[in-house]
C-alpha cells in the first residue's frame, strides 16, 4: 500500500504578516518556512502506519507544487521519514491549479491513500484535497481525525459538529485531515537527516492548466481600539457593558 502526502510550504505560524508592492504581494523577507502544520501531522500519521507491521504500507511519498525554494521543506519531510519527494515545478497559482497538477501526477503514479491537510495556513483555501478527489473521481473524506488500517481494512474517523463518525472506505481515497490525525509532528533524527541526502527528490515539469482565481490585493484588519480595563471586583460592570455598550448578550 502506498501513501501520498500533499505538502504545502507556509510561513511559520508565528510570522507577523506584511505585504509589499502596493499590498499586492506577501512580503516574505525574513520569513521562516515550514511544512503546513496539518500536512506535517498527516505525514506523521503516514509514518506511524508504515511502522506498524500489521499492515502493508510500504511507501510514503510527499508531493508539493512550487518552486525550488520549497526543496528545504521537502528535504525535511524526507528527514522525518518519507521515502520519496516529488516537486511539480510550477508557481502554485490557486487551489484548482495545484490540485490539477497533483492529479496529473496521480494518473501516472497511483497511490492508495492520499493525505491532504484541511487547509494551508497561508491562503486558507481549504480545497486542494477535495479537488484532487474530484479530478481523480475518488471518494474523499473531510475533517478526518484518524485513519486506521486493520489488515488493510480502512477505518476513518471524521469530526462532525458536536461529535464524530466512524467510516469505512475503499482505496484509493483522499483523506482531508485536521488536528488529531497524529499527536504531534516528529522531529527529524540525526540519522534521518543524513539519510535524507540519499533519498530521491524528483522535480517534474508542470502541465498546462487554467488558473481560475488570482490574488490581487491584501489588507490588514483594522487596528483594534484600546482594551477597556475593568476592576476584578466589578463583574457587574462588565455584564452591564457587554449588554448595553457591546450589545453582545
Amino acid at each position, binding site marked *: 500500500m502506498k501513501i501520498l502526502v500533499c505538502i504545502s510550504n507556509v510561513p511559520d505560524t508565528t510570522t507577523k504578516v506584511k505585504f509589499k508592492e502596493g499590498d499586492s504581494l506577501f512580503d516574505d523577507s525574513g520569513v521562516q518556512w515550514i511544512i503546513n502544520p496539518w500536512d506535517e501531522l498527516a505525514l506523521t500519521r503516514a509514518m506511524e502506519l508504515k511502522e506498524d507491521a500489521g499492515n502493508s504500507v510500504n511507501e510514503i511519498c510527499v508531493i508539493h507544487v512550487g518552486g525550488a525554494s520549497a526543496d528545504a521543506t521537502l*528535504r525535511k519531510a524526507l528527514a522525518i521519514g518519507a521515502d520519496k519527494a516529488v516537486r511539480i515545478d510550477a508557481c502554485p497559482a490557486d487551489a484548482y491549479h495545484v490540485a490539477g497538477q497533483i492529479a496529473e501526477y496521480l494518473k501516472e503514479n497511483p497511490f492508495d491513500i492520499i493525505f491532504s491537510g484541511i487547509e494551508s495556513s497561508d491562503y486558507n483555501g481549504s480545497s486542494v484535497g477535495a479537488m484532487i478527489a474530484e479530478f481523480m473521481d475518488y471518494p474523499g473524506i473531510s475533517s478526518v481525525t484518524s485513519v486506521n488500517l486493520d489488515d488493510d481494512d480502512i477505518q476513518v474517523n471524521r469530526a462532525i459538529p458536536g461529535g464524530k463518525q466512524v467510516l469505512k472506505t475503499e482505496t484509493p481515497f483522499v483523506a482531508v485531515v485536521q488536528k488529531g490525525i497524529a499527536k504531534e509532528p516528529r522531529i*527529524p533524527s*540525526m540519522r534521518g537527516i543524513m539519510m535524507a541526502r540519499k533519498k530521491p527528490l524528483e522535480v517534474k515539469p508542470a502541465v498546462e492548466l487554467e488558473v481560475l482565481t488570482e490574488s490581487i490585493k491584501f489588507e490588514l484588519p483594522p487596528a483594534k481600539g484600546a482594551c477597556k480595563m475593568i476592576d476584578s471586583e466589578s463583574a457587574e460592570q462588565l455584564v452591564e457593558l457587554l449588554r448595553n455598550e457591546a450589545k453582545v448578550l
Partner: protein
Amino acid sequence: MNFEFTEEQLMIRDAARDFAQRELLPGVIERDEKAIYPTEQVKKLGELGFLGMLVGLDYDGGGMDTISYVLAMEEISKIDSSVSVIMSVNNSLVCWGVEKYGTEEQKQKYLKPMARGEKIGAFLLSEPEAGSDATSQRTTAVDMGDHYLVNGTKNWITSGKSASTYIVIAQTHPELKHRGINALIVEADSEGISVGPHENKMGMRASDTHSVMFNNVKVPKENLLGEEGFGFKFAMKSLEGGRIGIASQALGIASGAYELALKYAQERKTFGKEIIKHQAIAFKLADMATEIEAARFFCLKAAWLKDQGKPYGQASAMAKLYAAETAMKVTTEAVQIHGGYGYVKEYHVERLMRDAKLTQIYEGTSEIQKIVISRGLVD
C-alpha cells in the same frame, strides 16, 4: 569565506530548537529547583541521535560535522544547560576519544551504545587536588600484568551517577610524571567503584555531578585507550574539543537570555512606552547582541578548523573564554532588564545567570584558557 549554513545544518538547528521547545522547556524550572535528573529528556535526546551526533555512521552515530554540533548545542542550551552538558560530555569528551584512539573492539563494545544514546559516558579527570592542574594526578592505575588496579578519587564528574562508561585518567608510572599517565575505559558497575553524594550546585542543578571513588578496581588491559603513557596527552586533546561544546553551551545560555530580554523589553512598558524605547535598555540589548554574535563566530571558527582537520586548540580556548565571559555578562544584563521579574524563577533568566557561572569554571576555567591562549602565542 562563506557564512551560509547548509540545508542540513539548518535542519539540525531547527530539530534541536523544536526539541528544546517541546521537550525541555516544560518542567525546566522544576528540574532545576529540585535538582531532578532529566532521565526522560536524555533518553529522547539519545533517540534523536543528538548524544552521538559527531560519531561516524559506521559506529551508529549521526555523522554530523562540528558546525552542526555548535548549532545544536546553542539551541538546547538556550533552554536547558543541565541537558546540554550531558550531551557535550558524551559527544565531545567520551565518544570522541574512543572513536579517535580506541581499538575496533573498544568501539564495537563501548562507542556504539553511547553513540546511540543508550549508554551515557563520563570523563574522569578532575581530582580533589588536581582540577585545573591536570598533571598532578593522584589516582593510580597499577600495572598488575593482566590488568590495571585502580585506586583514587575523582571529583566534579558530570553524569557521575548516570553514566555507564567512564574514561578514567590515572597515573601508572609516577616516575615518568605526566608521561606515565594512562586513559582507561572503565565500566561504571565494576567492583570497587562507589559514587559520592549528589553535589548541590548553584546552577545546572539537574545534571548529576558526583565524586567517584575507586577502591582496588580491576580494569582489563584491553581497556587502555591509545598507547601506554598517552593518558595526559589524550586528556588535553579531548579537552580541546570539549571546549567547543562548552563554548557553544555558553553561547546558547547567552542567546537564550538575550532572546527573553529582547521579548520582555518589547512588551514591558514604563513611563508610557516599551522599555526597549528607552536608550538605557536599547543600548544594553545592542551590546548583548553584538557580543553574542562575536561569541558565535568564535565557536563556529573553532568548529570549522576541527572539521577541516586543522589545529583548533587555540581557537577553541578563545571560543570558550569569550563565550563564557559573554554568557555571564549577558545573563546578568538580562536579569537587570527584567527588573524584579528577572529575580524570580518563573522568568528563566535567573537560572540562565546561575548556569552561565559554571561555563567560566568547568572544562578549564577562564584563567586556564588564558594560559592555553598565551602559551599558544609564543609557541
